């Protein structure tokens, strides 16, 4: 079981491990020779200019993008490709899904299912992926909706909700799968400024109350400072520098980090 520690014990197997990761879109190399690990329970925020490959990293972990080269391991299990007899072999979708069941993702544009009510959105995967009974899934969903302050809206359609409300439902939907890893991809970037706070407050609560490992891409530097154990600065597909938020935000070592922070803060 993961331990709820800010700085996970050294020596424990990494929760997420990137090994020599290569990702190309056509002729455009987005990530090259990327190595890094995330420990169990650790919260890592990726910062850097747009196009630096941060979102691609999250999408690779969620298997939304196909790895071009290298390996990603989740909890010690190969995710997209494995080495077999000296060859790099693609892992079939069915087996990939066994690994991704423990991974949840919240998107910039919420991506709720518009043909379902709020409640149906949340119980869909617990019932059809985890095999929960409908009654169990519903009672769990109601608990989560109350937690994100959406208890009253369970029978509404996503189109009837504000962006902030939709995003809170999307967070509840991801949590309903009991993820061990949560990927947050610019979850407040599509929101009106006055709605950002309610979503970040929910996420801060979750960070405080659970030991879910998190990989976060955000432009909200205060949020990054509040919840992260580690901040990684990316530029052009590689890590410029990394460290605790206090260090990166207060005394960045690299000029590129300083330039970036000056631009966003």
């Amino acid at each position, binding site marked *: 079981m993961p331990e709820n520690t800010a700085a996970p014990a050294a020596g424990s197997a990494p929760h997420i491990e990137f090994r020599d990761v290569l990702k190309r879109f056509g002729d455009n190399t987005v990530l090259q020779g990327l190595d890094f690990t995330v420990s169990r329970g650790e919260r890592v925020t990726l910062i850097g200019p747009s196009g630096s490959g941060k979102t691609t990293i999250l999408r690779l972990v*969620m*298997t*939304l993008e196909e790895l071009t080269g290298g390996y990603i391991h989740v909890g010690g299990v190969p995710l997209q490709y494995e080495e077999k007899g000296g060859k790099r072999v693609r892992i079939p*979708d069915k087996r990939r*899904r066994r690994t*991704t*069941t423990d*991974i*949840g*993702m919240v*998107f910039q*544009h919420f*991506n*709720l*299912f*518009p*043909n*379902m009510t709020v409640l149906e959105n949340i119980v*869909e*995967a617990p019932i*059809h*992926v985890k095999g929960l009974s409908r009654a169990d899934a519903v009672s769990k969903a109601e608990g989560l909706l109350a937690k994100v302050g959406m208890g009253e809206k369970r029978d509404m359609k996503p189109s009837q909700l504000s962006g902030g409300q939709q995003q809170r439902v999307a967070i509840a*939907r*991801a949590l309903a*799968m009991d993820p061990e890893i949560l*990927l947050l991809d610019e979850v407040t970037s599509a929101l009106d400024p006055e709605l950002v706070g309610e979503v970040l407050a929910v996420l801060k609560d979750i960070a405080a109350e659970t030991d879910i490992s998190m990989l976060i891409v955000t432009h909200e530097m205060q949020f990054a400072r509040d919840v992260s154990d580690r901040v990684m600065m990316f530029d052009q597909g590689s890590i410029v520098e990394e460290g605790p938020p206090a260090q990166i935000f207060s005394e960045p070592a690299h000029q590129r980090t300083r330039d970036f922070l000056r631009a966003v803060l």
Partner: protein
Amino acid sequence: MNPSTSWWDWSHAAAVLPSLLLEGLKITLIATVLGTLIALVLGLAVAIIRRTAPTAIATPFTWVVEFIRMTPLVVQLVFANLVLSPYIDSTLAIGIWVLGIHYTTYMAEVYRAGIDSVPTGQWEAATALSLPRLRTWRAVVVPQAIRNTLPALGNYAISMFKETPFFVVIYIPELVRVAQNYGSTYFRYTEAITLAGLIFLAASYPTSLLIRKLEKKLA
């Protein structure tokens, strides 16, 4: 005015109307409803196969679909009747299947557009929830695709209704055939054919208004 020489005779109109409604319209409606059901179900299946099957299967499959879509319904009716009548007794059944399969190829295109209109984010959300492929289609993609295409599907149903007169070429007693039979028996075509046309109009027009209303509601 002598009724037998005037261009319109109400007594002939009254005489032909019951058989137009009871025989002709009945068969026309049966053919439309069953043909539509076949096209709705097979059309969805074709659209999904073309989208998911490996190229080696999808490509020849596409040729067959295009072949059916690009040849006239009348030719298909005559051909199918020639080939199948030794094995299938009911000409009506042959007609309904030909009509249904012909329109399957149109409806498959409509469904394809509907499937393409489902945003990538929906597929990604399904992947993020680790939903199995089949469940993603059933619970997420197909309901949204159908919602986006309902008006177009309705228009093809009307179009099928109006194409049932082609059944005359294989002697199925639908509306127009019944009218023709009456005409050739009494040598009075005007009333029978006019009434048949009016019956088509009376059924199609309100339906098309309904579909337009639906279209506005979904937009």
